């Protein structure tokens, strides 16, 4: 490819800039040329904090985004799909142990709706041993020995509440700000606003493990009503790392290069003929596609990581696992990817089978995820990346202090139903306090007694760390400005360092 050609996106953006008023630009950002110059692959709608001539131009004609100096440059969101039990992991309730096996007081269930509990269930004591960890003295159970070691890096939010008690809607609420289908996901919003720092990689990438996609489907990384260029790009550990990345069977790199060169030579003739800036954009995209074919497999390859890193994360080359995904997440943010989302399926511990039992299935899930998550925090820290990377760990809701009793009949294993009123999530890095706990629940872990925060508050806080005022970060759709946090949300100032 000619040296000159990399200037094309700039030229296209300049042309575009000349033609655009601010209003039209904001309205149409993502349309045609705009999307090319500033889609998730190059930069966001609002420009970019890195010095990049294309984005500098863009910046002059748009609202300056971010709204203020960001604390975090990127986000790694670790979603444990199915909703882990806070009562076995972080929210230690000795009083609950004393009530184990007793009928649930009617005061707890009167007027409440549960996903599966029917009639009067029994109370279920904690199924794990707890200790206070580090200097901060945060409670972390023995199921997470590695995480316990880095408790002093973390802020635990112990009184998060949601209003959705089914997986798909709750996951949608968590990631799109709405419990129904159709809204853009958090990563889409962020790349729409900030773009990527690496022009050869998408700004929003997704990795899944646990055997299935999240319950809410791909909509949790969809772009909703934002242009499709902002949707999350799923990285796969089997087949092409990104769909359609490899050349067709029988086509070698030289031929591919020759063919893209030919395509672009003709496209340049087409541009001479029609003068359509969109053609310039297409030329740039083909070059970028060619570069992605190299850059993506490179970043997705963990072979060259040193042994101590593999030991640290518990990764095994060639396997599909949560651990491998976590290591990849680190590599991606290191390369400048803005938003990395991991979904690990299989945390729905109802106790209907051994793999959903608190003392079997949950233990296995913890064993598979604890070490890599702790390694991620240590690794980011040793690379000096933790301060600029916000790591969030969460499920879509929590679990009841009662034993689940599906259909009004007892279960053969110990398990808990979905619980929306109070559960634990944690955040680390990215300007969040170290070794801090925010919020608390009552002695059964059922209701918040302090520091109650909604899902919208969590979203507002994440956006805040990236430099967005969540109330001002909007997109006009269907006659009104939409935002990730709908009409709610307050930044949780207490957890910001």
């Amino acid at each position, binding site marked *: 490819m000619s040296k000159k050609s990399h200037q094309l996106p700039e030229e296209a953006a300049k042309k575009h800039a000349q033609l655009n008023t601010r209003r039209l630009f904001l309205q149409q950002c993502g349309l045609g040329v705009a999307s090319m110059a500033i889609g998730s692959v190059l930069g966001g709608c609002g420009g970019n904090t890195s010095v990049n001539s294309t984005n500098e131009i863009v910046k002059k004609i748009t609202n300056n985004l971010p709204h203020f100096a960001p604390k975090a440059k990127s986000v790694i969101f670790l979603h444990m799909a199915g909703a882990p039990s806070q009562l076995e992991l972080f929210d230690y309730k000795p009083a609950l142990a004393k009530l184990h096996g007793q009928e649930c007081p009617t005061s707890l269930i009167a007027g409440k709706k549960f996903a599966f509990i029917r009639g009067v269930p029994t109370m279920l004591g904690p199924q794990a041993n707890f200790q206070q960890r580090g200097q901060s003295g945060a409670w972390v159970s023995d199921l997470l020995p590695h995480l316990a070691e880095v408790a002093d890096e973390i802020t635990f939010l112990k009184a998060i509440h949601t209003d959705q008690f089914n997986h798909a*809607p709750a996951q949608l609420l968590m990631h799109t700000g709405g419990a129904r289908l159709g809204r853009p996901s958090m990563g889409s919003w962020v790349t729409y606003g900030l773009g990527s720092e690496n022009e050869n990689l998408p700004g929003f990438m997704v990795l899944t493990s646990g055997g299935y996609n999240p319950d809410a489907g791909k909509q949790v990384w969809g772009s909703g009503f934002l242009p499709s260029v902002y949707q999350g790009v799923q990285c796969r550990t089997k087949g092409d790392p990104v769909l359609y990345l490899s*050349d067709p069977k029988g086509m070698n790199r030289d031929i591919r290069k*020759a063919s893209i060169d030919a395509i672009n030579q003709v496209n340049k003739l087409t541009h001479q003929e029609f003068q359509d800036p969109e053609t310039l954009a297409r030329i740039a995209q083909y070059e970028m596609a060619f570069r992605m074919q190299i850059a993506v497999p490179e970043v997705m390859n963990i072979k060259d990581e040193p042994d101590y890193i593999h030991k640290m994360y518990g990764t095994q080359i060639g396997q599909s696992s949560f651990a491998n995904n976590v290591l990849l997440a680190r590599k991606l943010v290191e390369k400048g990817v803005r938003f990395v989302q991991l979904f690990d399926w299989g945390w729905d511990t109802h106790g209907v089978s051994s793999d959903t039992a608190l003392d079997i299935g949950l233990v296995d899930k913890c064993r598979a995820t604890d070490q890599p998550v702790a390694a991620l925090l240590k690794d980011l820290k040793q690379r000096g990346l933790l301060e600029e990377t916000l790591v969030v760990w969460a499920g879509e809701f929590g679990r009841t202090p009662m034993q689940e009793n599906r259909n*009004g009949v007892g279960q053969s294993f110990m398990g808990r139903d979905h619980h929306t009123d109070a559960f634990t999530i944690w955040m680390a890095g990215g300007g969040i306090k170290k070794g801090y706990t925010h919020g608390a629940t009552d002695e059964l872990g059922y209701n918040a007694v302090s520091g109650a925060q909604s899902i919208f508050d969590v979203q507002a806080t994440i956006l805040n760390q990236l430099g967005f005022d969540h109330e001002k970060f909007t997109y006009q759709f*269907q006659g009104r400005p939409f935002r990730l946090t709908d009409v709610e949300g307050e930044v949780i100032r207490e957890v910001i360092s």
Partner: protein
Amino acid sequence: MLISTTKRIPKWILIGSILCSSLFVLNQCSLNNSPKIDFNTQVKPILNKHCIHCHGGVKQSGGLSMMTREKLLTPTDDGKPAIIPGSPSSSEFIRRLTAEDEEERMPFEESSLAKKEIDILTQWVKEGAEWGLHWAYQPVEKVDIPTVTETALGVVDNDSKQVWGNNDIDRFIFKKLKENELTPSKMADKRAILRRVSLDLIGLPAPKEIANQFLTSNQSDAYEKLIDQLLALPAYGEKWASMWLDLARYADTKGFERDAGRDIYAYRDYVIKAFNQDLPYDQFITEQLAGDLLPNPTDAQYIATGFHRNTTTNDEGGTNNEEYRVAAVVDRVNTTGTAILGTTFACIQCHGHPYDPFEHAEYYQMMTFFNNTRDEDTHKDYPLLRMYRPTDSLKLIELTNWVKNVESEERANEIKHFLKTWQPTINSIDTDSLVNAALYDTKYLGFRQNGQAIIRNVTLTGKTKLIIKVLNVRKGGQFSIRINGFNGSEIAKYQFFKNKLDQPFLEIPLTKTVGKHDLYLQYKNPLQQNPNAMDFRMDWFYFTKDFPGENDDENASYQKQYWELMQTNPSTTLITLENPAERSRTTAVFDRGNWQTLKEEVAPMTPKVLNPFPENAPKSRLGLAQWITDKKNPLTARTMVNRLWEQLFGQGLVKTVEDLGTQGDAPTHPKLLDWLAYQYMNDFGWSTKRLLKEMVLSATYQQATNVSEELLLKDPYNELYSRGARVRLSAEQIRDQALAISGLLSPKMYGPPVMPHQPEGVWSTPYNNSSWQLSEGSDKYRRAIYTYMKRSAPYPIMETFDVATRDVCSARRIRTNTPLQALVTLNDEGYMEAAKHFAERIKAELAGDSKAQIQYGYALALGREIDERRLTVFEQLYQTSLVDFQKDADAAKNITEGLIIKEDLAETAAMIIVANAIMNLDEFMMK
């Protein structure tokens, strides 16, 4: 001159470029001499932008609302009205705009309005502060076609023959171009027009004969003939249905979590057929909203009601069915607004509309029309239309004829309706007070030992039989139904002697009972030792009469036929049916949009700012359809006309095709929009084909797409239509075009969705074992509209090329241009397969050297001759590749895999590389 521009300069130009704002300054100088201030174009935009956020339909700071004139003239918290019409000096509204004190000055905590804006508002108050209804809510009136003088039309085309302009559309366009000192572009080359109009009308390159006829004809009506031929092709319906399916949020799965499959493709086929038959738009709308309420509905009319059954349903364990039923109803109101009325009702779900004159309660009055349908988020998506195979259809006709004879037409219709829909039945999810019973998997009522449940409000008068759709039973089980409590009088009982029934239905005789009752269901089984075992599980209940013709000789054989028909498994499709009167629901306003906090009850009605509800129209979905398709409805025709224009020209006359309200964009050519809408409803009789024909016949449509520096400066977005529309093809067009030129395209129409090439591992949905199974034979080469659409994991190529995910109504696809799209067309197996067959076709149809073959292939793909420079590029690519493939026989073998050609593999392989490159050209992706 300047004076007249004040009024004439439309809004779009005021918000445009620097050039335009200087015009605005000029306007100011002449304000005092100008005609009366126009509320809609001059005042309302200022109020909307700066005031209404705090003084509107949601917030009314200081007790001031600017939603209507009445509200604005109502005393505020200060005790007097903000505006005294005719007297700016005594109007607080004006005083506050210029107040020195920042605490007082409005807009609050923002910079003050520009002087010109204050001048406009002051002058407006002085002139009496008259109000105006937003343009889109005013009825569509007959519009005078602009007179354009001969000299104005004195632009000659390429052949220096004709003056510019083919029809009335061009007069509107030309007038505005002239006002902006622009001339239209020359007409596009004949071949370019052929490609453009074919892709637009049928979504495919024109069939060879039709194309040749057009290209070789010198007759003046050759183009019109071409259009008529294209519009008559069945491919036309397949092209235009896509647009409608985005609005209808059509998909082949239910949406949430396990996202199970759903058969509603009959609706998709209905839409294709409706376009092909050119079903008048008013009828098209009526059938979709209320086909079931038409007299003696046809199957097609029932199928059409699938429009509002495309809402998502939630199968997830533990979901509240009523919550998702309500969500679906809400979605129907919003979709009706966005898709058909170009209006955003979604805002008023929670509060009064912040900008448009719709009130909170009006949302629920609209919702009332939709709130009485049978569907209630059941697992099986009831109600369904059972579409019997021909032999069974004949049996059904025989049976109903016999019933008509032995009993009555009414009874015959009742039986027919039940066999075709399994309605009206009561779903097992509608039972309550369950004891030793549960909705298993949160779907089906199941009894354990000593189980109990209640069905509410069943009218038993005249009912003698209960039919239950059964899932499982247990030997020894005893089932009974009582009225007046679990110890009341027994009206039915049944005992199971086996572990399995002969048929999945149970028929239980009922003791004759009069009136409406709660039914007390009980179950016990002396043989069952395990109290936790679930013995007896069911789906629905149907209360009916004895089978007719008791004394007729043929009673037994028809009764057998009846049960057989009940049990067959024909293909089905989701339909809308109304609840029987006895189970009708009431509708109340939701407090701040929350379905669980209800306020006052409301009756069905349409928003009062729009046309009146037609006299004598029923207050049902049918009446609603009559109101929507009433020629007095200001939105219906404008919305559709604008949408069709957008499909052809790449943008609407109102760009926000989803919102013609005050927050949408102003029309660039308001008179043209109204003229088209009026023609559509009147002269064209709601014929969509006729309207499209008018649009593509225009000279405006046929312009060349070349841009110049001057055009980019004066008309950067082609909003004046100073050139032809150069727009990227849709996902469907890209796939279909590739299949067409390669010769792979299957002409098969309709039926279950198909699965073309998709990489492994895209589907990975929890609790769902279904997988992507590559369709066999030519089924994998069918048009994109037949591709399986899974909501939680859409076909990735379609998603990459901006197809809406069909979760909710989507009125507009935002076109993007991304490297992921390049990767698809460069590497996708299916797209590559088309390139292979395209190369094979080129070689088979034209013997000769590679240059000639490339020339031929380019012409096939682009419909035009290749120029020397392009030819050189591709010939070089061919030669480079050829050398490579001659060296690497394995590579040549791999890339030609699947083709019939077995000789000259290197040559074929090299031609495949060229074919793939041609199919990736900008000109190939654009129209």
